[in-house]
């Protein structure tokens, strides 16, 4: 297996790990971390597939998209954190409302 395929598989693993945590973890901060891990998995797949050029330099187009994605991800994270803190200020809980408990 080439390094490109190996890291692409790791990326798939990260994506699924993040998606699972996004579903089962209740705390919103943990969900934000989970979405970030999923994003990293996607970036890893993109950059790994860009490396399928043998010994030549990798394809720069996916690499450029990943750089854009990393910066957008951090901005989205900052916004999500503020949303979470606003929810905590309104409801006192850092979890999504669940009618069957209350």
């Amino acid at each position, binding site marked *: 297996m080439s390094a490109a395929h190996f890291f692409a598989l790791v990326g798939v693993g990260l994506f699924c790990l993040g998606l699972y945590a996004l579903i*089962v973890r209740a705390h919103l901060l943990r969900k934000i971390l989970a979405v970030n891990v999923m994003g990293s998995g996607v970036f890893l797949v993109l*950059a790994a*597939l860009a490396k399928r*050029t043998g010994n030549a330099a990798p394809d720069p187009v996916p690499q450029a998209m990943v*750089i854009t994605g990393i910066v957008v991800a*951090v*901005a989205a994270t*900052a916004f999500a954190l503020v949303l979470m803190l606003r929810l905590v200020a309104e409801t006192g809980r850092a979890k999504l409302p669940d009618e069957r408990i209350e």
Partner: protein
Amino acid sequence: MDALTLLPRIFDGVTGLALLLLAFWALASPRLFTGIVMFVAFGLMMSIAWVRLDAPDIALAEVAIGAGLTGALLLAALARLSAAQPAQESTSQSVKRKQTLRLFRWVPALLLAMVAAGLAYAVQSLPPDSPGLSADVAANIARSGVSNPVTAVLLNFRGYDTLLEILVLLLALISVWTLGGLSSRRTVSAGPVLDVLTRVLTPVLLLLSAYLLWAGARSPGGAFQAAAVLAAAGVLLLLAGWRPHPRLTGLPLRLVLVAGPVLFLAFSLTTIATGRNLMEYPPPQAGVLIFFLEAAATLSIGVTLVALFLAERPPDKEGQ
């Protein structure tokens, strides 16, 4: 197989395994703080993976954002969270419900194992050699005005990506401000050591940011990396207790925030008005134009990221 081909494979294997384990602990550790620590370590390991994938541009961006911004953002949010929400006991009812939920966790686990298998099969069945667009980039790089292919893609061939990204960042900040932002927190006084550290590091960080911007034309670096380092300098200043003068947070702040987008938009409109394609640079002036657009983008992105970290909504008008 000789050692020189085997060793990089072991290195890659350790890196990949470490990534999966760190991600697992970031999401599964019982304490949020441990999770955040593991997530920061995960980001650092990602930068090693980028290096192994021949992507030093991405490694620079990951390092600058992962080491400087993400950790600070998450830790600051955790601090506000514990201040707003003292540890609460779970009611017996919710504990019971949690246990029932835990019993059914195998359902999403099973579904996701199937998704993972499908994705792995898809990745595995892709052809091992696929140059993608690298030949097209290599053929046109001489006309782009820069010699680093990643910068050429970001600022020239797909410049609209960068334009839209700057707008997304601005949108995130506007959304934070629309939510009313967060109230300012008491500032912990910096103490002499942090004070000196900030005074020494901030100018060095500004210098490094300028270097990355300048180097991006021919070697790894560019507007995003420079902006992330610039933002790290701002975050460090904020953590040390510095606050911008109220006179600066009105119109001047907003002018800096929109400088990048406005310049990009003006340039795009000019290219269309002069009969070219959207963001098609005239080759002789491409290098200079790219540099000025990148400089404006760096400033705007950097200040936007700092404002996102601060998350305080500045007053609409002075004195209000």
